[in-house]
């Protein structure tokens, strides 16, 4: 039976959830789940996991864009059918993993991947830069302050050698979110690329009563900058809101709640860079990323300022950090004043917190380092 638009509820199936994962385990995974003893990265992008049964799972990790076509997925399926018994997986960072059950099958897989142009770069393991997790950007979102896929492509082109090698002090996780909603959860990344707005919302008085619950728009503002107001539209007084621009922190939450308050702007929008976050509990506790560059302009198609900023931070870190040290651990060891100096990033007042709980970030000790900031 096929879908009948006249009787949409007939024969309906719902709430069946995802497919059961065990249907999709490659045989070597199914046979060895829970029995793995250790792993090793034998070359960038290639891992071996050893089981207590003696079995080995060899994984080849390749980078991919997050935005991919079904044509590309079908090509991945072709590769998996040829080499991997018809199974493969994706990682949480948009990488693709092809798994085989013996070392002998690795090289033919690598050769096949290499023969397909630049579609399947092998890497993203160990002390390198792995794939950038990101959001939709101008490709498919209504609130972005920048694009996502394009910025990521430009940054990964520049950092490509760090994806295919393992020369850094530790893994470096880069993430991009195209506005402060942070669908990409970039707040705990070694280097975060964040789209930011810098102009308060406009108010579309003609539409606001039709598309908005005014109390929701007003309560959406964390700083009380949105207030009830009246405006004249075609000679008629309508209920609307006004924005106290001095209080606006450009979070865009009002626009999320009210389509009549757009704030995106070609000159207002751009990118901020935050660094030093981590998720892992290894050595030190998880850390938030901290804002070190408040604004870089949107310069499509290749965002050279953003690319240079990310690369500059990465290379200063690569040069100076100790083995195992994540970007945030390095910055804390040397002190943030040294971080700004070593990365050659001008320190601006924008990096001093003046939002809630800001006091937690102010220095309340006489301990500091003399850097070029002190004249």
């Amino acid at each position, binding site marked *: 039976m*096929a*879908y009948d*638009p006249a009787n949409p509820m007939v024969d*309906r199936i*719902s*709430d*069946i959830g*995802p497919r059961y*994962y065990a*249907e*999709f385990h490659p045989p070597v995974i199914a046979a060895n*789940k829970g029995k*793995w003893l*250790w*792993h*090793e*990265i*034998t070359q960038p992008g290639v*891992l071996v*996991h050893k089981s207590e049964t003696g079995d080995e799972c060899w994984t080849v990790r390749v980078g991919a*864009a*997050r935005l*991919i*076509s*079904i*044509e*590309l997925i079908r090509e991945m*399926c072709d590769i998996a059918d040829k080499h991997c018994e018809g199974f493969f*997986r*994706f990682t*949480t960072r*948009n990488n693709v993993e092809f798994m085989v059950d013996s070392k002998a099958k690795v090289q033919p897989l690598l050769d096949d991947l290499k023969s397909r142009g*630049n*579609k399947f*770069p092998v890497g993203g*393991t*160990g*002390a390198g830069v792995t794939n950038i997790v990101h959001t*939709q950007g101008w*490709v498919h979102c209504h609130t972005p302050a920048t*694009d996502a896929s394009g910025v990521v*492509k430009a940054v990964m082109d520049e950092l*490509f050698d760090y994806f295919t090698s*393992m020369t850094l002090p530790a*893994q470096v996780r880069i993430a991009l979110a195209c506005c402060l909603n942070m669908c990409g*959860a970039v707040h*705990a990344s070694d280097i975060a690329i964040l789209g930011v707005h810098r102009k308060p919302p406009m108010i579309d008085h003609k539409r606001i009563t039709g598309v908005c619950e005014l109390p929701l728009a007003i309560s959406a503002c*964390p700083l009380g900058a949105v207030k009830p107001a009246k405006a004249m539209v075609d000679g008629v007084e309508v209920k609307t809101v006004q924005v106290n621009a001095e209080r606006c922190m450009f*979070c865009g939450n009002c626009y999320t709640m009210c389509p009549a308050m*757009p704030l995106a*702007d*070609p000159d207002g*929008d751009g990118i901020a860079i935050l660094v030093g976050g981590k998720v*892992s509990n*290894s050595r030190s506790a*998880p850390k*938030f990323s901290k804002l070190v560059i408040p604004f870089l302009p949107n310069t499509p*198609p290749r965002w050279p300022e953003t690319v240079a900023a990310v690369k500059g931070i990465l290379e200063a870190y690569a040069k100076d950090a100790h*083995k*195992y040290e994540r970007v945030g651990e390095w910055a804390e060891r040397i002190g943030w004043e040294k971080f700004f100096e070593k990365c050659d990033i001008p320190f601006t007042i924008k990096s001093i917190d003046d939002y809630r709980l800001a006091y937690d970030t102010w220095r309340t000790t006489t301990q500091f380092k003399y850097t070029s900031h002190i004249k």
Partner: protein
Amino acid sequence: MAKHETPLLDELEKGPWPSFVTDIKRQAEKKPECWDILGQLELSYVEKITHWKHGGIVGVFGYGGGIVGRYSDLPKRFPGVEHFHTVRLAQPASKYYSTKHLRDLCDLWEKYGSGMTNMHGSTGDMVMLGCRTEALEPFFYEMTHNLNQDLGGSGSNLRTPANCIGSSRCEWSCYDTEEACHQLTMHYQDEIHRPAFPYKFKFKFSGCPNDCVAAIARSDVAVIGTWRGNIRIDQAAVKEYVAGNIPSNGGAHAGRDWGKFDIQKEVINLCPTNCMWMEGGELKIDDSECTRCMHCLNVMPRALRPGAEQGATICVGAKAPILDGAQFATLIVPFMKVSADNEFEELIEFIEKIWDWWMEEGKNRERCGETMQRLGLPTFIKVMGLDPLPQHIKEPRSNPYVFWQEEEVPGGFDRDVEEFRARHAA
């Protein structure tokens, strides 16, 4: 749909990283609406602003989530993306696929959608990008009937849970993350598909404190594997590491010459609790001081394994910064057995206790962690029926402003000021 000139996007076909522009062009040969994705995106590159309208409520009958409306603000110029809704599909735990299932999904998406996807979205769903409203129901019908595949979550509901690869291919996983993720996903299909919460709610399952799915940073309930008791040590393998016969950190640092492996410098001195030392050629650990950070296990995976008594630490209330700032999840249950043997009963009971409270107390669009912050961790601990533990905090409060309850103070709060004045002249 006509092909558009895209000189700016064409620049993104250059360089070694895979190009999404090249990929969309490839798809456009079969699905011409993809030319309009490129056309509209090129315009955004010229004008430096998005051309997608705000929202639009669409969905399939009976579901309040899983589909996100999206419309072009230039539908005449780019008719191929006039409607371009997002369809979120529940991903299988750990994101393994058979090529059969993926090919079936690709065929279905070719029939009803644009052919473009995200594999995967940030939360974990397979994201199908670009569908017309009238295609949603037939797509859903065929997907559920022929592919045994359902939608994921969106809106103020339980979002599609996600997990790290777990014990399917990792030696550190302290519980079965994929089974936990799958069973809870199935248990809460109603909560995933029909929004009834103050705001979104996320579970994420990581097998160890390395937390590869970033549970502690972005989930309302983070289930992070851990262990009790002693790290299992293979002293023979320790010697092999010391001798330089096994690459440290699973070979992760092989690309640079960091010098000979130095267990003192690279393991013992980096232990955050200083609970390790060498003695008579053997590595010793005072496990009672260990906080299970994973560093030593990460560096010497062949020599050190998590303790045998395994479970999970449960942390609650993470979120991204909107609005009052980012929050990591707060440690609430130091150690919980997480087992399929009792169908994750203890975890389910814990989650539902949170929901009962949050659905009552949470304001509109307030994440659970924000409600916790507004009403206080002591309140949350009481609501959850837990004993307060020093593990709940980094340090005791430094202000003295305790909210004493009347019943805690002898004689209560009612006093007689006349009687007081009889003894104390004003």
